[in-house]
């Protein structure tokens, strides 16, 4: 598997849905397992290792899902934009399918970030929602995901749906830096970035560790979910091919 006729490993081999389908099937349980393990460790740290925060009390424990979810929401959009772009330029069907498969999971994490943020806002800011820059732009991100899915759902022709979605995703990518830097540009209620590559982290080591592990867990989860969804998408779209017929129908 993964070898071309000449015996060398080839990326092109896996860019066909037919060969990617079984590969995804093999990888998917591994990522799922990793996700479960990492989340379990992360949860343990977040509830039993990390100390109570001096100013916020235990409300801050929302951070262990809020921040990883917010990260994933943006990261998945970037990945989606990337695969959309690849699909648009190289005209590879699989890339478009991956982009399609990423959207629901991305939207989900966006929703989680919003929800946990709102629940965190009530005890700390005294309100569920403010029209603050980061909150608003995260909401916009949710709309972008929904717009992507709605556009693809509204177009009957598969090829057109892929391409139109890709253009939209690429245009929407511009929103990501806006979300990320929004806190810098507007000075608002929401926390500025406290994890950065350049300066030393300002939060407690254990907190950071918990957050990073949870983020890794969410990451693995996203991969697993996306692989599972890609497999469905592949089957649906390739139903006219003989290999799917052989895979499902026993014979063609």
């Amino acid at each position: 598997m993964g070898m071309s006729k000449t015996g060398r490993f080839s990326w092109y081999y896996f860019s066909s849905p037919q060969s990617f389908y079984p590969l995804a099937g093999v990888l998917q349980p591994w990522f799922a397992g990793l996700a479960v393990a990492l989340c379990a460790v992360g949860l343990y740290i977040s509830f039993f290792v990390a100390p109570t925060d001096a100013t916020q009390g235990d409300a801050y424990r929302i951070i262990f899902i809020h921040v990883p979810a917010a990260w994933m929401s943006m990261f998945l959009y970037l990945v989606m934009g990337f695969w959309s772009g690849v699909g648009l330029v190289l005209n590879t069907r699989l890339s478009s399918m991956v982009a399609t498969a990423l959207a629901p999971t991305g939207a989900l994490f966006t929703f989680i970030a919003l929800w946990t943020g709102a629940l965190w806002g009530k005890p700390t800011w005294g309100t569920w929602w403010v029209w603050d820059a980061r909150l608003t732009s995260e909401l916009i991100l949710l709309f972008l995901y929904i717009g992507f899915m709605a556009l693809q759902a509204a177009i009957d022709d598969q090829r057109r749906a892929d391409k139109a979605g890709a253009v939209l995703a690429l245009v929407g990518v511009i929103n990501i830096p806006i979300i990320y830097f929004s806190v810098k540009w507007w000075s608002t209620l929401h926390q500025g970035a406290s994890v950065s590559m350049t300066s030393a982290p300002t939060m407690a080591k254990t907190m950071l560790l918990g957050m990073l592990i949870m983020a890794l867990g969410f990451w693995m989860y996203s991969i697993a979910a996306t692989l599972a969804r890609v497999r469905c998408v592949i089957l649906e779209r390739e139903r006219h091919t003989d290999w799917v017929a052989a895979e499902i129908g026993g014979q063609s």
Partner: protein
Amino acid sequence: MIRALGWVLRRDLLLAFRRRGDVVNALVFFVIVVSLFPLGVGPEASQLRNMAPGVLWVAALLACMLSLARLFAPDHQDGTLEQMLLAGEPLVVLVAGKVISHWLMSGLPLVLMAPLLGLQFDLPADALGVLCVSLLLGTPVLSLIGAVGAALTLGVRGSGVLVALLVLPLYVPVLIFGAGSVGAVAAGTGAEAHLLLLGGFLALAVVLAPWACAAALRIAME
């Protein structure tokens, strides 16, 4: 190329002139929305003044968004769009022509009208100036982004909402900075930063949107 752009522009403006209604449309809509608010909200001057930038900008945004429906759809229906794709000119150029004419017909009138309406809300002179500049920078961005949305949803089921759904998230930053700039002047802090950012958006949109739009049109016509 420039000649083709000129003809597209000329045609659209002529058409707009013939169907005068449609041009005035955006403008009348803008005026109506802005004038209805005092009727609905009540006549307190200070409250109206506070609302003014927001109301004006929201109205401009809606006026622009609504006129998007007529940007490509009529051309699509009567077969002119096909002919544009086959024109032998780069599609981006023709798209640029259409976007410019859209702005001239829906954006520019708003910019010119805004100070008058601002006066109605008792905005001070410097705020009026900034309002105009912010609209001048912002409405072309609305037209440019809107064109991409309109092209993507061309002939699609329920395209009316879809275009709103697709385009609005991208409009919001423009709205926030646009209304924010006027608010900033009113609040005494300078509006330069806001306007600079709007200018940045405009530059970005001018460079990217026509290409995205042309690509979307080709996709839509398949």
